[in-house]
């Protein structure tokens, strides 16, 4: 069952001579519970695509449907509400709130939605991430791996339909990176969450159900992993 559909999405930065076409008529769709990797060289437009899919940035042209809703037709505030309810974002540099401790960071999207804290769920997530003894620390007091765990915890806490991860292991050593990917995969499987992962690492990409290759803002390949093999 299709959860996300991207139709002719283009993103252009600048004007005239300085115009850069980061995405050029990108179209694809993702099924519910599917694990999709997006790979491509630096500057190919992967992160731009992820931000547009996550409703953080708006496309210059084209539409993005999530659960049948054209998310970029929504107002800023409705888009914000959509984002915190439906999307879980995991960044390469974690993007945690520097002034919030681990507990607060994890619960942030849930709290922004005006909902009261589910303390039991929070304890469960913190324990699951192995951060019980650091939960009062600020992000800057944690290692990169720990910060990325918090970032994943934040994405998992409120059960978003889609997890978008932008090179989540790019800033971590191999072992920690593998642990992070395991967490994401587990969440994908156990919670049936759709996972879209951007990565440089082909080996990592091959762990997905499907791989989409982007080059110069265009999809050059979009195939099931078993077909690639």
């Amino acid at each position, binding site marked *: 069952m299709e959860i996300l559909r991207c139709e002719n999405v283009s993103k252009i930065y600048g004007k005239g001579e300085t115009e850069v076409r980061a995405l050029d008529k990108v179209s694809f769709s993702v099924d519910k519970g599917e694990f999709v990797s997006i790979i491509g060289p630096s500057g190919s437009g992967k*992160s*731009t695509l992820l*931000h547009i899919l*996550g409703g*953080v*940035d708006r496309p210059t042209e084209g539409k993005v449907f999530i659960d049948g809703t054209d998310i970029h037709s929504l107002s*800023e*505030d409705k888009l*914000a*509400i*959509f*984002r*915190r*309810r439906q*999307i879980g*974002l995991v*960044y*390469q*540099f974690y*993007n*945690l*709130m*520097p*002034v*919030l*401790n681990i*507990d*607060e960071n994890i*619960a*942030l*999207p849930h*709290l*922004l*939605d*005006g*909902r*009261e*804290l589910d*303390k039991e769920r929070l304890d469960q997530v913190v324990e699951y991430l192995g951060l019980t003894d*650091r*939960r*009062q*620390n*600020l992000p*800057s*007091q944690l290692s990169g791996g720990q910060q990325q765990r918090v970032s994943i915890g*934040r994405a998992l806490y409120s059960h978003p339909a889609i997890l978008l991860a*932008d090179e989540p292991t790019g800033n971590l050593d191999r072992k920690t990176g593998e642990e992070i990917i395991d967490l994401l995969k587990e969440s994908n499987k156990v919670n049936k969450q759709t996972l879209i992962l951007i990565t440089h690492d082909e080996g990592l990409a091959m762990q997905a159900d499907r791989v989409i290759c982007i080059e110069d803002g265009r999809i050059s390949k979009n195939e099931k992993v078993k077909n690639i093999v």
Partner: protein
Amino acid sequence: MDNKKIIFQVTKTYMKKNKKRTTITFLGILVTVILMTAVFVGKDTVMKYMENAVAADQGRWHLQVYDVDGAVAEQIRALPCIDKAEVSRPLGYSVFAASANPAETPYIELKGYSGEIFKWMNIRLVEGRYPENDRELILSKRAIDEGSDIKPGDRMEVDAFTRYIHAYLSDEEKRVIEEEGKEPGGVMFGPAFSVTHGDTVKAPEHFPFYEENDVFEEIHEPTGLKGTFTVVGIMESPDYESPGQGGYIALTSTGSDVAENEKVNLVLTIDPDTKTDVYKELAKLIDAARTDEERAEIEKTGISYVGKDGIGIPMENGKILSNDMLLTFAAKGQDESFNFLMVFFQAFFIVLITAASLVLIYNVFSMSFKERSRYLGMLSSVGATGSQKRWSVYYEVFSLLLIALPLGIIMGLFVIKGGMELLKPHFSKIISAIASNVISGRSSEIEYRLIINPVNLLFIVMFSILTVWLSALIPALRISKVGPVESIRGNEGGAKLKKKGYRTYLNFMLKGKTERLLANASVERNTHSTKGIIRSITAFIALTLITAFAARSFTDILESKANREQLVPGAAYSSYPYRFSIEDDIQYQKGKEDIASSDEVSGYREMNLNMYTYHIDYDTYTDEYKNALSTTLEKFFPAGMPEWVRSSYMGNGDLFSDPAVNIITFSQEDYNSIAKKAGIDVSGYADEMNVLIYEDIAISTDDFRFGSDGAVKPDYSVYQIKRPLNAKAGDMTELLSYEYDEENDELRDVTIPVRIAGYVSDEDVKEFYTLRGGELWIMVSENTKAKIDEMSGIAAHGIDTKVILFDVNTDDSKLIRRLSQIKDEYGDSAVETAGLISEYTDFKTAVTKIADIVAVCFTILIAIICLMNLYNSVMGRRLARQKELSVLHSMGISRAQRSKMLMLENIRLLIHSVIDSALITAAFVVCLRILLDMRFGHMIFSLPLWQILLTLGISFAGLHIFTAICYREDDNTQIIEQIRMESV
């Protein structure tokens, strides 16, 4: 020496790259220079303007010495402290054939002026020219106004004489004196001049003309001046000419030489650079020329001039006249407290400017510390030394100062010019209201010019450099200590974190108060940027309030000094165009009844004052009052207060050793309204003589003068007392006085018990009067006053002043014509136009008002620096929070949530800042208070309440507006860019 070229190059690039921040730093430095210019040039400009205003009103002379002979005149001229000495020569009276009013003004009163006195005395021509020799004269326009047809070019015969009044001694009186040994009576010509029967006395200057009768005759003694004079001009009536005097003023030119045996008046200007007590030097010379008999005669009066050294020199009243206000504004006044105040507050404002500038520049560097440490660390890693890094900061501020200095001085001059243009109408209004000569609207002609002198420019440059250097010092030292590794990593400059972490705001989380959670976390945990913003708001509130408080203290001291023993009518009296007053009580009562019963009167109000008639027992006063009195008196006698002083002023059983009180009588309606305002119910005392007591008394050194027993002239000090009497509302007290027993020709004690209905404050009586002085003010209703008068009989002493202010509803008022027929002993009408009775009743009051305006302007300028600082800090915080905001955006924060979060943050920041600034302001105010108390005694400074409220309002509004500007929606692009780049 380190090569700093590369450092300067990099700093320059950094400055270009961070244009916004560089602009803020530049503006901060620029405003500093503007303020320095305002302090130095502005102060001199305002002082010069005031000097010109005083000169326009009272003349440009500094001192006048009356009746000096040739020898003394020569000695005075030889004094090094005297700049110029001109002669004003009384040449006597002459019959004025062209007078159109011979019944009242049959003469001209001729004076000779030498040199520049025409200019110094503000003699203004209506037509013609000034006299150029001793056979030309100019005549007062009063002669023309009263109907004379004399004009420039006419000639007049002058046969000058001195006027003497001889009072006849009748045969009957002669017999009584001889046979019964009684003293002869006399003829009174007003309160200041009387002639004993049988005597012949020289008439004083400006003496009116009285028709001779069988009681006295006027004798003319020729002075020898005789000849034909040409009228070369008509002048405006000089300020010393009154309508009642017997001769129109005529002025001719005269030489400045003084003959040995003649008596002239010397008009002097003093050397601008002199530090000598000129008044004392003159007093010494005059005293040295006296014979022993003359000196003994003067010593009997007990009047003397006492210098700073405490040595008294006997001096007749009015022998030396000084143009006090002009000397004060020219910084040559005898009263050093004004000069001290000027210097003290000038220094104080410079410190404030430095502080404001210091906080601003420090904040700019502190906010950008992380960025700077990156490029400086990079330079450090390739071998840049601490000194080179320090110089990057100095380069930045001094290169900006180089542009800001000339620009700031020029802009400062424009600010002063603009300020003066804006304030000039206000100044003119004040001056017009109080000045005697410039009243006809000429005050707007008083020109100001910017006083720019090299010394002031040097000070501006010096203090600006010093301020900027001090401001950059701490950031420079901090930056020089940054090591290469930390600065490249960008770890420097951040706040230290708690190792154990931060307690979760579980309460907010459980209750879903996300905005509060975010606001609290941001304020409490991002201490680096929080501190900057708190520092800015604190600086804004504290510096603005300190400036406001200092300015208020300054004007309070000036007011206290200026309005000593004064009663200033308030708004209740300002709208009546006519005033009626006459000393004779019967005529006054008649006039009052006429006004009260006239259909033509649309409204009237009486000012009824009684000064110094009544006393209250010294023992009834509080210790606060007694201590203030004793401390003030002790200042005059460093070697110990003589017993006679103690017993004369501090109660010895004699009435006059008990403090005098002043009584103000109000209509029952006004009395009730004052009581109501003060929250006092007087209805319960309707059957008793009840009084309201004004709660403030200010005892100052200006209230006393001593010239013996080692008395010195102390520095000005004033003690304000809040509760003068040991009696509370509802208590009885006694008014003490002497009654004159006509029958037995003796004084009799009078004791009048009155009930104190309550105490009233300046706010309660402001509508009617502003009251000052060292005596207690007591307010009574007409009924009570009538009872008091009945009980006290004929008062043996004191001064009564009764004035009725009224308005009429017709242009052709019979009442006014009727009242105009009532004349006093000088022939002056009892009714006259009231003029401007406003809050500006005298020049000194006006000065304090102007000082108030200048102080408010200065407070505004200081506030501007602080607001710029606040904007810079808000912007700095906004930039430092880029990551926070981008995360919140990606997590789906709505605009409403973001606004609420920012508002909650602002409230928290404001609470922190208000607490900090309250502590700083309080500490500073206490220090200032101690300093001023040490110098000026104990003053009750009024709280600048509206400034406090306004400052708090502006800080909150400023913080909110700046937040709205710095966090505006279009910044979303930056936030998305931030997320896209995934780096901060």
